[in-house]
């Protein structure tokens, strides 16, 4: 259940970008989650709603963009998708692969509704 501490970290990152005195609300947060990140998205969504409950981010939705696992072959330079169960180049069969996507776990966008902002 490390999804709870991941949810906490996401909230901390969002808080750094949305000032304390901001009067609008955070509508959604886009998160890139790689296939090899070891994160269970459903569990993360549950934890995120739990950690944001009662905070100024309550109601913010996590928009998850899942990133597939791809790798570049060190032998033939082909970039191909990798099955989670076999790290083998689909072109030449080599096992010398460098992962180029699939490890992501990052916040990419925060959508805020500023129409509630108080005019001064």
């Amino acid at each position: 259940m490390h999804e709870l501490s991941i949810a906490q970290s996401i909230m901390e990152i969002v808080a750094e970008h949305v000032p304390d005195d901001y009067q609008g609300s955070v509508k959604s947060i886009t998160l890139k989650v790689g296939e090899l990140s070891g994160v269970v998205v459903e569990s993360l969504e549950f934890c995120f709603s739990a950690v944001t409950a009662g905070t100024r981010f309550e109601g913010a939705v996590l928009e998850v963009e899942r990133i597939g696992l791809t790798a570049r072959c060190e032998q033939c330079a082909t970039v191909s998708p990798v099955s989670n169960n076999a790290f083998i180049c689909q072109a030449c069969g080599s096992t010398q692969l460098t992962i180029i996507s699939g490890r992501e776990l990052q916040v990419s966008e925060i959508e805020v509704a500023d129409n509630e902002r108080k005019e001064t």
Partner: protein
Amino acid sequence: MSIITIERKVLEKNDQIAQQNRVLFQQHRLLVFNIVSSPGSGKTSILERTIESLDGRITLAVIEGDIQTDLDAQRVARYNVPAVQIVTRGGCHLEAGLIRDAIRQLDLSSFRMLIIENVGNLVCPANYDLGEEFKVVVLSTTEGDDKPLKYPPMFRSASVLIVNKIDLLPYLDCDISALTANARRINPSLRIFQTSCKTGAGIPAWSDWLLQEANLRQT
């Protein structure tokens, strides 16, 4: 509506602290590794056998991660090895900040190898860099030969696999060649040792390799 575009790693804080730990370890020319496995695979027993097998040929210290108790640190402390216990109080993995706090209790110049025993869990610790040089994943034969396929992030992130409890093979349906083949499907560069803490088989090969690696860092 407006959109703030950021590209920030969720675990960036952990990764930054891990990097600080790593720099500190390198300054002290320490060999530091992180042992991970599911609960009950024999991590602490391997540690005990390793300390016995090294038999004072190298100075070392241990950081023990546990959800609830300090039983493992007590086991290790019997060998007169400095041992710091981190009790995570339910937390399913160690984080870099916990390691940073733990090493403040150690004199890093008084030993050459630091072993971090993570909380028993094959999922969560894969995400958290602690600043170690490499991960050692332990898999016992009773867990079945298909485990590497079920936990690819962990087996991909480890450099060494120890297959433990090989003395039980005659009683189990575990096929050790299938197990190692499955592990290499996920991570072809895994270095694999086969051990039994009951009979001591394989422990000298593993501990001699460690000693050799630690010596490389001193030169």
